[in-house]
């Protein structure tokens, strides 16, 4: 009876959302655009981690490492050789693609371990990646610039350079943030659709089977080790792309950023949003990455939070309290994350019942 309306509601919502997102750069100021760009880059990384941790049940603490591979890979491939820094000076779009591939190769090199270890074991093993990554970032001076990091060459695509040179679109000056917004949006949409395709198809079923019962999955003919290694590589490539985008937004990469805390943030994102779903990863990423920025912006107006260095709870710390507590609360009281209640209402026959 109300079927046509129901059928039309979802496409209509999606269209409205898309138009809104496309129109935002014309209205928002730089702060919000930057925050949005961070959130989108984080969402891409979180989707990748959710494929691995949420859908396949393989914990990874090494996500920050692959973000770093993407970010620094792009810098090295696209950068100039200046002074002590090495750079290959490739066209920047090619560098971005190769950086993602490089993150995939790094994930592949770890696959003898990623394929054989299960769940939380892999979580501890991937701790090694963080420390190895930090070590290399601080020591390989000619590639990474050491402690001070290195500048990120701007992306140029189809004759448009995504730097500060202003481009006037409909009487709105477009700087780097405005232009990058569309690149990030496109990348996020592509990544989300691809992950959805993976999850809904045969590989997704196999991944869930591995998570829910590894031996049964093996008996059914799922090559468990190969799947685990494959998903690990895929998730590292997602992280690589997120790293490239973050580098482009930051315009400078510093090794400190790619530490343990970043990995924990990504885990918090997928848990808060909802393990195993693409929408969950996006929601969680927006929550975790916007939280510190909002708290910083409105620290004057908030009780208990004060500007960094004044002795009180700094915005970064306050946000860490909040998402740490959110992780615990979500797992205990809302298994399935923020998006899952909505899911349950819409689809009565979900294949993934929370165990």
């Amino acid at each position, binding site marked *: 009876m109300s079927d046509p309306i129901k059928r039309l509601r979802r496409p209509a919502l999606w269209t409205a959302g898309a138009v809104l997102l496309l129109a935002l750069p014309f209205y928002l100021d730089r702060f919000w655009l930057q925050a949005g760009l961070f959130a989108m880059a984080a969402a891409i990384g979180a989707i990748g981690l959710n494929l691995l941790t949420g859908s396949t049940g393989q914990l990874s603490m090494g996500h920050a490492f692959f973000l770093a591979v993407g970010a620094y890979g792009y810098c090295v491939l696209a950068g100039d050789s200046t002074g002590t820094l090495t750079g290959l000076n490739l066209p920047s779009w090619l560098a971005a693609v190769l950086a993602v591939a490089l993150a995939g190769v790094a994930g592949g090199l770890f696959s003898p371990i990623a394929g054989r270890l299960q769940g939380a074991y892999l979580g501890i093993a991937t701790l*090694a990646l963080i420390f190895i990554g930090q070590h290399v970032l601080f020591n390989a001076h000619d590639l990474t610039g050491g402690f001070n990091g290195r500048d990120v060459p701007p992306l140029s695509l189809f004759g448009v350079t995504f730097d500060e040179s202003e481009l006037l679109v409909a009487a709105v000056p477009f700087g780097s943030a405005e232009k990058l917004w569309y690149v990030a949006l496109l990348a996020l949409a592509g990544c989300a659709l691809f992950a959805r395709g993976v999850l809904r198809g045969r590989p997704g079923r196999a991944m869930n089977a591995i998570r829910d019962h590894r031996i049964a999955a093996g008996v059914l003919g799922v090559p468990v080790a190969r799947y685990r290694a494959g998903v690990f590589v895929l998730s590292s490539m997602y992280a690589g792309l997120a790293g490239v985008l973050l580098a482009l937004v930051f315009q400078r990469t510093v090794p400190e950023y790619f530490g343990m805390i970043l990995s924990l943030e990504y885990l918090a994102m997928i848990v808060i949003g909802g393990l195993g779903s693409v929408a969950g990863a996006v929601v969680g990423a927006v929550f975790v990455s916007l939280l510190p920025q909002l708290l910083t912006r409105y620290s004057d107006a908030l009780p208990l939070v004060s500007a960094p260095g004044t002795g009180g709870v700094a915005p970064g710390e306050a946000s860490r309290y909040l998402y*740490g507590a959110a992780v615990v609360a979500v797992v205990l009281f809302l298994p399935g994350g923020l998006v899952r209640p909505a899911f349950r209402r819409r689809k009565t026959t979900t294949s993934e019942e929370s165990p």
Partner: protein
Amino acid sequence: MTTFAELLLNGISIGSVYALIALGFVVIFRATEVVNFAHASLLLAGGYVTAVLHDDIGFWLALLAGIGGAAAVGAGVEFLVMRRYRGSNHSVLAIVTIGVDILLTTELTRRIGTDVLALGDPWGDSVLTVAGVSVAHTRIAAFVAAGLLITAFLLAFRLTSWGVAMRAAAENSETAALMGVRLGRVSLGAWAVAGGLAAVAALFLTVFPTPGLERSTSLAAMKAFPAAILGGLDSTTGALVGGFLVGITESLATGYQGDLTFLGRGIGDLAPYLVMVAVLLVRPAGLFGTKELARV
């Protein structure tokens, strides 16, 4: 040769401290099948309590308070968080401990700030020299204390009814529950013991030659993770061997880093993880871990 001997002795000593941390980690894993990523923050909590109290009530009482404090924090985490989880997926519980770790570490590092806190230990920086080989008193104390605690713990694990309950729960928790083992108590006890062991380890991670308790102490504590996993997560022997392996590797790599400059500075901090990766490549279940067998 003397350098080698000194490095080896230091490595064994620091290794015994790692073994202490890894042991607590393994105890929690055996009792509850949860990989506890909040372990480093338990350690930091114990160290912090000791550091704050030692001026007022003296070192030994403060150390006891630290042990008690960390045990209470561990038990509190178990009682308030772990026990509330109704599902059965242990991977998800591991993620909960990550959430707990974020909370505890943020709170403790905020309190510690940029300070370096002394723990007021009685050994100071005195050094014992025998036949040209000098070892700091703190290192000897660490080895002796860790050795005593580990022995006491292993004996309790074998002989007391608490240890039997713990092993029964590890073997098969359902059967153990049917036989009258109170799983709640077993897991509460495991968390408390792990916290106490971590607090002792916190003392020996922060005494001479380390400057004191600071926010990066939890990074040092994290080296117990590779120790636990390269020995095999479910094996107490593995935790000991892993701890020594990690300690000795770290000590040697740090001592000879002058000869290893091509690997970059600070290779000593990285060495434990490299050893772990190397071991896992050959034996994915760790050196002493039981290979998983399952009946379908």
